[in-house]
């Protein structure tokens, strides 16, 4: 019996509908996305293999990095090409995985049968095993002849190598290299409910659901659902989504989404100057990433909490290494931790991941932090600096200018710079109580730090004020909605999707900004599964609103 069958049972077994059904067909029929050809991300491939063959199969994969497209890395999977070198990487992993699956330790549990004679071919057993594997790994079931062909290959190889399992290994290696394993080739079909319109076919919808919510290819149970056409029945579809949202695998999916949205992949290459920040210990960047993801999962899934509270909550998790940076007690392992009010750590912006990622290696950067906040958290675009700008005042500052605020004041006095720095700095300067590694400080070179600032017209005096202003900003939840839809459909959000986004925003607000209802609203909406021509030009991000932040605030 395949280990995966057990996993699936527990992952999809629970089904209880706790959320309000969104209004059906409320969105105009031309809201949708184009069909995609996506590459699996590294983690999706690993999850897919391990959910099926078991977590002890070592998958040491590192695929080519993706390009962030309109704020979302996942959108890059729909445009990235596959190089020869990437194919060689796939082959290496396929060889390593297939060799493990048939080895003496794993074959006992991973094969549904035993060959009559393991020194030669056994077509019956090979058929049983390969059918299961192919049905699971390929996005779309292949024609019957393909199964026959692969079983024959296994038979020929087993005879040639005098080893049934060697024959299977050789074929499994090739199966794992099949583009239908590593690429997600979505396909469309006419939508009977809306004549003249197209929708993703059943398997493509299952793939989108699974990659979005679980960050893995659909498992056998979901494939069975797709095979029965249940995803076209709104009631059955809602039940499927409910059970996926109740699965422990949702955490995997949610972590992947927020890792993407907050740009946490940057922690993989983050380093600091050790002489300036000796407390930015080796390995700490990975722990800072983990801290933020644990905070997200705890707040949004375990507590089923309000997304906006992520920006004000003092509750998080602590590890010993992070304890050194934060200067707090930290016992071995990961422990729940609540910062005392006087620590001025409230919200994920005051966590080391955001603070250190958006700093230079030797100093903090109010501008980088403000820019990241605008772009990642609020879905706004900050234009790059003009080419001829004189940075000397910031790079080689007058020693009399001790704090970042004093230095950046120069920028804001210069009309060329002022336009953009007014967008980033008032928010970024509120985080100046944290140095470039994320440690709290009250002064810079002996001069006290002034952490006051404003966000879109709302003034505050400290970092807690910034968190509260973000919490209260009407833009904050709409950005999450936009990112989630883009991530779910692996592409840039088309302008035509605005009505759908508006509806998601409404649902999100009425459900108290809890994540699960939002994920449900997105996945049950026609916009998630409807196919439109890619000619609909992608919407520019809301950069138009940037030069006038006041307007953004008053007119969300």
């Amino acid at each position, binding site marked *: 019996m395949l280990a995966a069958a057990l996993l699936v049972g527990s992952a999809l077994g629970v089904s209880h509908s706790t959320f309000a059904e969104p209004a059906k067909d409320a969105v105009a029929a031309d809201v949708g996305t184009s069909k995609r050809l996506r590459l699996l991300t590294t983690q999706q491939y690993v999850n897919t293999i391990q959910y099926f063959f078991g977590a002890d199969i070592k998958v040491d994969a590192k695929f080519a990095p993706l390009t962030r497209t309109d704020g979302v890395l996942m959108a890059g999977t729909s445009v990235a090409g596959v190089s*020869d070198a*990437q*194919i060689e990487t796939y082959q290496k992993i396929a*060889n390593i995985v297939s060799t493990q699956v048939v080895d003496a330790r794993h074959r006992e549990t991973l094969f549904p049968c035993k060959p009559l004679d393991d020194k030669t071919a056994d077509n019956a057993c090979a058929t049983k095993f390969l059918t299961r594997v192919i049905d699971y790994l390929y996005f779309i079931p292949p024609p019957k002849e393909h199964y026959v062909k692969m079983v024959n290959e296994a038979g020929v190889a087993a005879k040639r190598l005098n080893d049934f399992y060697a024959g299977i290994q050789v074929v499994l290696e090739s199966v794992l290299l099949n583009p239908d394993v590593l690429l997600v*080739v979505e396909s469309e079909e006419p939508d009977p409910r809306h004549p003249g319109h197209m929708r993703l076919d059943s398997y493509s919808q299952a793939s989108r659901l699974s990659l979005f919510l679980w960050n893995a290819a659909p498992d056998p149970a979901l494939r069975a659902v797709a095979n029965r056409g249940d995803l076209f029945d709104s009631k059955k579809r809602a039940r499927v989504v409910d059970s996926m949202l109740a699965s422990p695998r949702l955490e995997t999916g949610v972590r992947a989404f927020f890792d993407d949205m907050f740009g946490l992949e940057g922690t993989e290459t983050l380093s600091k100057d050790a002489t300036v920040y000796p407390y930015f*210990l080796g390995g700490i960047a990975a722990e800072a990433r983990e801290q933020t993801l644990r905070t997200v999962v705890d707040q949004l899934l375990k507590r089923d909490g309000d997304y906006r509270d992520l920006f004000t909550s003092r509750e998080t998790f602590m590890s010993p290494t992070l304890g050194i940076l934060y200067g707090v007690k930290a016992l071995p392992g990961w422990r729940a931790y609540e910062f005392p009010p006087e620590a001025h750590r409230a919200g994920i912006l005051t966590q080391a991941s955001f603070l250190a990622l958006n700093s230079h290696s030797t100093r903090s950067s109010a501008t980088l932090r403000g820019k990241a906040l605008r772009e990642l958290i609020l879905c706004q675009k900050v234009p790059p600096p003009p080419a001829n700008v004189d940075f000397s005042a910031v790079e080689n500052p007058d020693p009399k200018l001790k704090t970042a605020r004093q230095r950046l004041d120069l920028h804001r006095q210069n009309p060329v710079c002022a336009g953009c720095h007014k967008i980033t700095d008032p928010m970024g300067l509120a985080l100046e109580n944290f140095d470039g590694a994320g440690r709290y400080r009250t002064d810079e070179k002996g001069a006290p730090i002034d952490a006051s600032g404003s966000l879109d017209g709302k003034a505050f005096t400290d970092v807690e004020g910034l968190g509260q202003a973000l919490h209260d900003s009407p833009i904050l939840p709409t950005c999450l909605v936009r990112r989630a839809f883009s991530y779910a459909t692996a592409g840039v959000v088309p302008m035509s999707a605005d009505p759908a986004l508006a509806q998601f925003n409404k649902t999100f607000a009425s459900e108290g900004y809890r994540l699960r209802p939002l994920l449900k609203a997105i996945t049950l909406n026609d916009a998630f599964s409807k196919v439109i021509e890619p000619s609909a030009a992608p919407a520019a991000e809301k950069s138009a609103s940037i030069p006038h932040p006041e307007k953004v605030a008053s007119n969300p």
Partner: protein
Amino acid sequence: MKNFSRRRVLRGMLNGGAITVGLPLLDAFLNTNGTAFADGKPLPVRFGLWSWGLGMNHSIFVPKKTGKDFEFPEEIACLAPLKDQINLLTNFSAFRDAAGLVGHVTGWIISRTGAPPSGNNLTAETWDIKIANQISRQQRFKTLTATGSANARTSYSYEDPNTPNPAEYSPLDFYARLFGPDFNDPNAKEFKPSPRIMSRKSALSAVVEDMAWLNKRVGADDKARLDKYFTGLRHLEKQFDQQLTKPDPIAACRPAANPKEAEMKMGNESQYVEQRHKMMADLLAMAIACDQTRVITMAYDDMSSNTVKPGYEKPHHTSTHEEPIDEKLGYQPTCSWFTRRSMEGFAYFVKAFADIKEGDGTLLDNMLVVADTDHGDARVHSLENMPMFTAGRAGGKFKTGLHVDMKGAPLSRMALTAMRTMGMDIQKFGGGSNLTSDSISEILV
């Protein structure tokens, strides 16, 4: 593809098929300069790691000058004739962070995995294996590991933390493995293809042939991306074809006769270590020349070396801790004697490759060899001031003849530089404070 003639291969290349991996190194395929294949692709670069134990004596090992015009202090004087083949890099650090210091173990584990050990254990495979997975999986041997010590455990190449590649320590046995009955002599008349490769190739072809149902589903825009995928798969098929083809003669592949048992001594005495090391070096050079592997690791002797100097009561390791520093000389004279033997070993190793002609240059020109050790000052188990050498020009990617002061940079920078040079697309390497994303640009062309 039975008749693998030059014309046919070239035609394949002209038609757009790329053959870069595993191509036999027949001079007939080379361009008129002998520096590249006829289509301009460079000769494959092979990789080696060489190690010696117990560091060095700083005052007589590290040149005063850096750059091109550096001198060879007495402990490395034997390498002076090879100056234009090698680089010397000094003043590396191995950062163990919170890991305890296990003398003679921590240093090499950091050097070879980029990360501090967990207890006495590695936390990942050694990076020669990463390179082997990249460039040598298609060869007869993915990697070969040997030592001059009489001990199979003297291996610093690990497939994973629990799986060392046991070292070849008997030249007799190693010869049998390399050039015994299983040797597919490129210059022999008969050829028998590997049944496993035949099966893998056949299964892959079955997948490639069966793609009609996928192609149908893809829109015009994505067709090109899917085609690219198939191009990649066909490239893999070609690699298999190459392995299933009778190897073309390789002029340089001329294995010597089986070494005689009588010549072999297995003791710890310095002269026997030296003799075994020489035989191993010659065998490894020939294994590379015959394209049996593209990655090798060689240990002159154990990091915690038990090599004995005749007439001196303490073996090398014990000497490092017990021998007083000679007040006049300013170093431990017997320890330096041992280090000098190791350096002579390195000189021999480098020459073994430099003496084999390939194209219009030497095998060494198309190799990168990195040499490392376990400590800076072994007496105090120092993980600072650690030296490294490189040898070879890596197919024109490496400069030579330089002494670089690494100013305390982590050893992992060498690993990263080497891995990138060997074609790996990696952003960073190293665990904890050894994490780096910087190559050593000083030695790169």
